[in-house]
């Protein structure tokens, strides 16, 4: 009787420990992919695209990344008053509790998400290798769908 009771107590303690550990559990790669690209694709705005009125595809400024669910990324940038479109591949390299690594083209970044009352945000982070370097973030806001 006492043995069974003690086993139950141990199991209950294990559950408590595991339940606490799960509070640090991270999203899976699939969940992160969905957050980034949705079911088809999502537009993330780096700089709002401002176009000129009139004919042609002239623009003033802007840059947006469209992460697609098929792991392609369409980068639309305004360069020299013209819209440039470039396509690259993306993939989630690794996921842990603290960092998600994403490969975009040939570059590797740390992928971060956060939400504010202003909207959903994402950043591609290039981490400093030593203290003399700077950690840089390229911050994007999710375009309204």
């Amino acid at each position, binding site marked *: 009787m006492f043995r069974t009771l003690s086993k139950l107590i141990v199991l209950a303690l294990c559950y408590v420990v595991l339940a606490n550990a799960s509070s640090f559990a991270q999203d899976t790669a699939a969940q992160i992919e969905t957050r980034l690209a949705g079911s088809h694709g999502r537009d993330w705005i780096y700089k709002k695209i401002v176009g000129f009125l009139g004919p042609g595809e002239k623009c003033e400024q802007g840059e947006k990344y469209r992460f697609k669910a098929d792991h392609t990324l369409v980068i639309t940038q305004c360069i020299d008053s013209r819209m440039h479109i470039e396509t690259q591949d993306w993939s989630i390299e690794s996921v842990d509790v*603290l960092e998600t690594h994403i490969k975009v083209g040939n570059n590797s970044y740390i992928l971060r998400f956060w939400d*504010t009352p202003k909207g959903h*945000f994402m950043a591609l982070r290039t981490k400093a290798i030593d*203290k003399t370097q700077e*950690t840089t973030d390229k911050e994007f806001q999710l375009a309204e769908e």
Partner: protein
Amino acid sequence: MDEETKRRWDVRLGIVAPILTVVGLLVGVWQFNKGEENKTRLEYELLDRKDKIDFQRKLWLERLTIYKSIAEQAGKIAITDKNDKAFKGLVQTFDASYWGMMIFVEDPDVERAMIDFHDEIVDYQKGQSSEDKIKLRANNLVKACRKSVEPGTAP
């Protein structure tokens, strides 16, 4: 052997013997000097090695003290809410160590853990990170510090 030959040999020996004596003396002096030189060099090398070990030991002890201080700072930051009045002061103290004493003692693994913790604090202050992540980063930092001073690392 006739008298003449004996006399010649005596003369030859009379000349060669002092030369040999002088050469022997010179070799002896040279050997003595060389020995003294080697002894002095070895003594200097020994002193130099002892100085280096003393310096490394002092640095290791200093590292241990600073790591303990950093572990305390990281722990305090990890358990303090960012809206708490004390939070800013704790971060300032950490930043002072980050750009100061830690550079003096940290190894590359600890430096990386410091950068990670520092970046996480910045994210947390901007509302882009969580208390849990700060705690995990603090945990990683303290573990990196511990690994850096594990038994066998002391000189």
